[in-house]
């Protein structure tokens, strides 16, 4: 288990008005393990997309560091940075607006090669066509404009563009959210196939538990810019070890077990990230909150089965953690 990308205490702040800023991502430490699919879930505004952009260096980090195969991305030379850019690619949420409407899709797919100076000039068209063929776009559509393609075809083009530089890490930011269910399954299967074919590591961001559970090896749950729990996907779905994850899972519609398991209804709304609650950010809505939760800041502590939970009462609520605390590597 080697970390391909390691996030260490990463915070991203956006200025709002004068001398005020909002922390979209606050002190997140996370390992992206080579060959695994990491699911990142959380509701709207929890900072998942911002974290993804921080991974690619699209937004500056206020604190902490992102390292790629042991090398700090911020300290990379120009040349290394270019190589890094080609190795980490992103597939965006809206397949339509992610493509330049004035370029044929083959030109769009070719562009990363031009920008990063990959391959011989006259081979780039072939590489682009091969990437488009790999994602299953028929050859007669390669010279179309984006508006002439369907949503699913456009998302295939976006995936082809992300893969044309042969990246090692693919970040999918809600990449199937804009598609209907049948297409979602199609694109998810495609991603699964490509993961093997291209030997990819995938970070998959979604608010859809079903989707994340289906394709992820490991899942990280975010709430208000903080990581609240990480665990292997099957463990997390079975035995969540954070009250927020529990609430999320209970909100999942289940067609098999009607009425089984009571649904946890959270009180109130997600607090404003401009003025996050003190202590545990989840405490105002938590069913198990104690006075201590309002003052003490929880940190991720390792729990059983290699997961980690940022709940002060994790031992009380979900049983004792592992005795050997040195398994932090898996807990991150």
């Amino acid at each position, binding site marked *: 288990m080697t970390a391909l990308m390691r996030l260490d205490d990463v915070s991203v702040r956006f200025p709002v008005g004068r001398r005020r800023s909002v922390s979209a991502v606050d002190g997140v430490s996370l390992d992206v393990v080579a060959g695994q699919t990491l699911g990142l879930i959380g509701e709207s505004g929890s900072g998942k997309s911002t974290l993804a952009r921080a991974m690619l260096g*699209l937004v500056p980090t206020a604190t902490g560091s992102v390292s790629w195969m042991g090398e700090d991305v911020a300290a990379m030379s120009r040349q290394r940075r270019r190589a890094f850019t080609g190795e980490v690619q992103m597939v965006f949420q809206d397949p339509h607006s992610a493509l330049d409407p004035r370029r044929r899709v083959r030109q769009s797919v070719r562009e*990363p090669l031009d920008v990063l100076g990959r391959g011989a000039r006259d081979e780039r068209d072939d590489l682009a066509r091969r990437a488009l063929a790999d994602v299953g776009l028929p050859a007669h559509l390669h010279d179309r*404009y984006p508006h002439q393609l369907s949503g699913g075809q456009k998302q295939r083009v976006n995936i082809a563009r992300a893969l044309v530089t042969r990246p090692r890490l693919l970040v999918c930011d809600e990449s199937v959210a804009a598609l209907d269910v049948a297409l979602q399954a199609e694109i998810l299967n495609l991603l699964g196939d490509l993961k093997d074919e291209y030997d990819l590591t995938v970070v998959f961001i979604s608010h859809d538990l079903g989707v994340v559970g289906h394709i992820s090896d490991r899942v990280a749950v975010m709430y208000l810019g903080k990581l609240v729990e990480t665990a292997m996907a099957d463990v997390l779905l079975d035995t969540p070890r954070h009250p927020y994850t529990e609430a999320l899972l209970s909100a999942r519609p289940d067609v098999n077990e009607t009425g089984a398991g009571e649904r946890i209804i959270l009180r109130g709304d997600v607090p404003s990230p401009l003025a996050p609650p003190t202590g545990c950010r989840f405490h105002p809505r938590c069913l198990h909150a104690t006075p201590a939760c309002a003052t003490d800041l929880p940190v991720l502590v390792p729990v059983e089965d290699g997961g980690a939970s940022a709940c002060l009462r994790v031992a009380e609520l979900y049983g004792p953690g592992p005795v050997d605390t040195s398994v932090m590597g898996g807990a991150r």
Partner: protein
Amino acid sequence: MSTTLSKPARKPTRTAPRRSAVIWLSYGILVAVAVVVLLADVLAPHAPNQQDLTSVLLGPSAEHPLGTDDLGRDVLSRLLHGTRVSILAALLAVGIALVVGFPLGILAGYVGGWPDAVLMRLLDTVMAFPALVLAIGITAMLGPDITTAMVAVGVVLTPVVVRLTRAQTMAVAGQTYIEAASSFGARGVRRMILPHVVPNVVQPIVAQVAVLIGFALIAEASLSFLQLGVQPPTASWGTILARSYTFLERAPMSIFVPGAAIALTVFALNIVGEEVQRLLDPRRR
């Protein structure tokens, strides 16, 4: 609908909608204007400044199809030569507005921050003046001359171009395809501005250019009418108007002809501008 059903073998193909007669007429007017600009010397029956004081203020005849003015000069020849002067003057003004305004608009819209704030406040100041009055002021200060006058008009038109470009750039800069491009390292003028920003910004600007040329033509006529633009004896649409205004009752022809030329050209530019905007829409391809 029965006709479509009776012909099932015909594949439904998308054809461009029929262009109306108005659009063809507008293209025709602009082509005619372009031909006159290029070939005024060949087309004009007389020299534009050649006086013949024995035949002043004549009506239309075989020798002078549009009559003569108060100094016996052939109105048709003056109109043809004046077209060249007026059109080139308008193009100069719009050219200045575009060359200065378009890059500034892209800069302000894409970079934002303090360069945007400073530039916009400066342009607000320029825009606060009534356009023609500012042009008159600048020309009066620098001396009446068509080049100065049209540079002044260009200055007046620049904020219009900047504002439009800036607004469009801001809309484009927020699009995901710009973020996507930067996700694989595209930045700077060559990789970001030219391939992604400019092509998506340019469409409404092109339409606006046609409108601006119309405005500049009218500005040329107005300034020349006030003796601040084209100087006599050079012919332009504005100077012909100014001269014949004095003799309106005796020779109405020479005031209507340049007036009609201005009106028709501006009309054609507006129609063609709209059409070009439609043609540039990527969804049409």
